[in-house]
C-alpha cells in the first residue's frame, strides 16, 4: 500500500505525528506492531506533563518539553481528554541539596518555564501538608500537569483517523528497502511504500534506524517500576512530588493521577531485553521506600497494581531526543530516544515532524482538517437528568459492567466501535478504565470478554488480553451446542 508519509509506531509520538500529518494534504499511514495504539512505552510511564525545568538548556528535550507542555491544555480540550495542572514540587532533604534546586531553577528559567519558585520548609508544608517533615525546601513548578497517556494517545489516533490517516495493526516492520525515491517497508501485514518515513518505533526505533542510516544508534531499555494506589487514598497529595534528579533520571515521584489514584515510581534500571516489562521484588521495594521518603504516610497496603515500563534511552549521559532526518537516509525521519519527557513533548514533536514531512512531500495545509474528536460519552459526568435521558435513548448506558470504576456497557461498546477501536481486554481497559479499579477486572472480565467476542465476531477463546499470544482462555469446556452459543 502506498502513502505519502508512513509513521512507524502508534505510541504517543507516532499518534501525535499522525494527527499533525492530517493537517496537511497528504496520505498518512501508521504501522503498528501491536494490536492497538499505546501498547509500548506510552502505556507505562508517570503520566506527567512536565514543566520542563530539568532538561539541559538548548537541548531538544528542553525545547519540545516546554512547547509540548504549552500546547497540551488546548489539545486536551479539543480532544476531550482529562488534563489537570496540579503543579510539581521537587523536594530537597538538606541545605546541601539546595544547590540542586537552584540548578533546576536556573535551567527552568533558561528553558522558559514560567512561575518557578523556591519554597522554604514552611511554605512547602503549607502547599502540601503530607510531604515528609524531613523535606527542607522545594522547587515549585505550577505549570506541571497530569494527563491520561492512554486517552491522549487514543484520542490523537482517533482524530488522525477521522481526518484520513490509516492505521495498520499487527504490522511489525521486518525489513526496509530503498525503491527509487521510495522507502519500502516489509511488515507482517504486507509491504508499504512512501517517500517519507517517520520512525516513532519506541524501543524498536534504534534497530529500524540502523537498517537505513550510516550512523548507528544504540537505545538502552531503561526499566521503570511503578505502584498504583486505590482511589480511596488518591487525595493524599495534590502535587506531583519529585526528589532531586539523579544521573539515571527524575527519580521516584509520588503523584495523583487524573482519575484520582495515586501513582508512585519509577525506578531506573538499564536492562538488555527490550521486552522485559516485568516488575521485581527489589524494584517494587525501592519504589515504596523512595516514595515514602517523600510522603511517609503512603498507605502501601492500598496498592491495587504494579507495573513496569521501558524507556528508550540513547546510550550516554545527558542524552537527548534524536529527531530529524537520519544521516544518509533521505526522507527517513527519526523520533527516537523519546524517554522522559517524551509524553510531554509529543504534541510539539508531532507538529515538528509533520511540518518537516509535509515540506519533503510538498504538501499544503489541509483546510478541511477537523480538530475535534467524535464526542466521547461518559455517563458518570452527566447531570442526573442528562444521564437518565441518555439511558432512555441508549439503554446500554444503563447497565454497569465494571462495578469498581462504574463503566457501562455502552462505554465499552463505544471503545470497541471507535476508530481505531479496542481489540482486546487491555484495549477496552485503557479506553474506558473497565478493569482498572480495585478488583482489577475480577468482576468485569468475563462480561467484557463476552462483549468483545460479540462485537468482533470471534469465539471467546480467541479474545486476547493485549494482542499476540495473550489469549485469555483455553477454550470451551464442552463441545458447543446450537443457537445458544
Amino acid at each position: 500500500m502506498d502513502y505519502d508519509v508512513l509513521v512507524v509506531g502508534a505510541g504517543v509520538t507516532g499518534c501525535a505525528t499522525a494527527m499533525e500529518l492530517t493537517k496537511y494534504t497528504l496520505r498518512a499511514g501508521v504501522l503498528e506492531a501491536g494490536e492497538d495504539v499505546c501498547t509500548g512505552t506510552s502505556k507505562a510511564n508517570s503520566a506527567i506533563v512536565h514543566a520542563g525545568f530539568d532538561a539541559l538548556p538548548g537541548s531538544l528535550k528542553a525545547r519540545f518539553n516546554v512547547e509540548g507542555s504549552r500546547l497540551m491544555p488546548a489539545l486536551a480540550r479539543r480532544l476531550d481528554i482529562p488534563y489537570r495542572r496540579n503543579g510539581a514540587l521537587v523536594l530537597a532533604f538538606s541545605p546541601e541539596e539546595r544547590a540542586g534546586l537552584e540548578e533546576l531553577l536556573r535551567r527552568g528559567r533558561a528553558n522558559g518555564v514560567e512561575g518557578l519558585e523556591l519554597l522554604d520548609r514552611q511554605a512547602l508544608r503549607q502547599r502540601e501538608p503530607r510531604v515528609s517533615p524531613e523535606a527542607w525546601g522545594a522547587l515549585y513548578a505550577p505549570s506541571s500537569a497530569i494527563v491520561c497517556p492512554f486517552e491522549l494517545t487514543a484520542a490523537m489516533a482517533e482524530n488522525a483517523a477521522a481526518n484520513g490517516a490509516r492505521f495498520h495493526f499487527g504490522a511489525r516492520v521486518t525489513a526496509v528497502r530503498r525503491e527509487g525515491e521510495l522507502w519500502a517497508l516489509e511488515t507482517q501485514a504486507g509491504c508499504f511504500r512512501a517517500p517519507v518515513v517517520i520512525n516513532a518505533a519506541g524501543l524498536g526505533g534504534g534497530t529500524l534506524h540502523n537498517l537505513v542510516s550510516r550512523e548507528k544508534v544504540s537505545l538502552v531499555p531503561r526499566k521503570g517500576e511503578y505502584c498504583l494506589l486505590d482511589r480511596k487514598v488518591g487525595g493524599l497529595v495534590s502535587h506531583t512530588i519529585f526528589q532531586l534528579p539523579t544521573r539515571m533520571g527524575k527519580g521516584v515521584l509520588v503523584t495523583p493521577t487524573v482519575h484520582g489514584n495515586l501513582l508512585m515510581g519509577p525506578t531506573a534500571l538499564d536492562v538488555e531485553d527490550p521486552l522485559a516489562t516485568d516488575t521485581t521484588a527489589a524494584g517494587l521495594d525501592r519504589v515504596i521506600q523512595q516514595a515514602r521518603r517523600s510522603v511517609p504516610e503512603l498507605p502501601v497496603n492500598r496498592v491495587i497494581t504494579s507495573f513496569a515500563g521501558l524507556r528508550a534511552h540513547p546510550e550516554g549521559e545527558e542524552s537527548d531526543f534524536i529527531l530529524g532526518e537520519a544521516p544518509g537516509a533521505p526522507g527517513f525521519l527519526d523520533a527516537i530516544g523519546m524517554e522522559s519527557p517524551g509524553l510531554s513533548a509529543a504534541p510539539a514533536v508531532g507538529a515538528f515532524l509533520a511540518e518537516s514531512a509535509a515540506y519533503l512531500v510538498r504538501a499544503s495545509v489541509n483546510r478541511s482538517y477537523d480538530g475535534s474528536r467524535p464526542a466521547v460519552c461518559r455517563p458518570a459526568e452527566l447531570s442526573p437528568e442528562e444521564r437518565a435521558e441518555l439511558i432512555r435513548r441508549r439503554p446500554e448506558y444503563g447497565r454497569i459492567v465494571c462495578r469498581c470504576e462504574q463503566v457501562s456497557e455502552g462505554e465499552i461498546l463505544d471503545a470497541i466501535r471507535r476508530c481505531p477501536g479496542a481489540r482486546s481486554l487491555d484495549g477496552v481497559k485503557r479506553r474506558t478504565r473497565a478493569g482498572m479499579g480495585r478488583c482489577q477486572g475480577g468482576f468485569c472480565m468475563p462480561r467484557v470478554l463476552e462483549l468483545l467476542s460479540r462485537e468482533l465476531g470471534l469465539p471467546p477463546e480467541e479474545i486476547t488480553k493485549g494482542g499476540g499470544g495473550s489469549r485469555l482462555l483455553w477454550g470451551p469446556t464442552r463441545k458447543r451446542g446450537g443457537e445458544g452459543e
Partner: protein
Amino acid sequence: MDEMELTCICCPIGCGLRATLEAGQVVRVTGNTCPRGEAYARREAVSPMRTVTSSVAVEGGVRPVVPVKTVPDVPKDRIFPVMDAIRDLTVPAPVRAGDVLLRDVAGTGADVVATAGLDKAP
C-alpha cells in the same frame, strides 16, 4: 491385614486416622479423638463415596452449560469415568432443576441431575 491412613473431615482438628482392615472389613480405628472420627473411618476405608458436581452442555439455552450433580453419590474411584460421560452429554434447552439428564452414569447406578434450570435462548 491392611492398614489405611485417613484424615478425618468431621471437624477442623483433622485427626490422622488409621483404619485396620481384615477381609475388606474395618476391624479397628485409631487416631480418632471422638466417635465421629471412627464412624468416618469405617465408611471411608471401605467404600469412599463422593458427589460429583459438574456441568452439562445445553443446546439452545441462554447459557452454554447447566450445573449437575450425581444422585446418589458415586464410588470415589468412578469419578473420572463419570466425568467422561458427563463431558459427552449434550441436552436440549430448556432444563429444569431436578431434571434427570442421564441415568445410571458410567454404570454406577447414579443419575446425573440438573441442579439449576436453564431457559431456552429467545
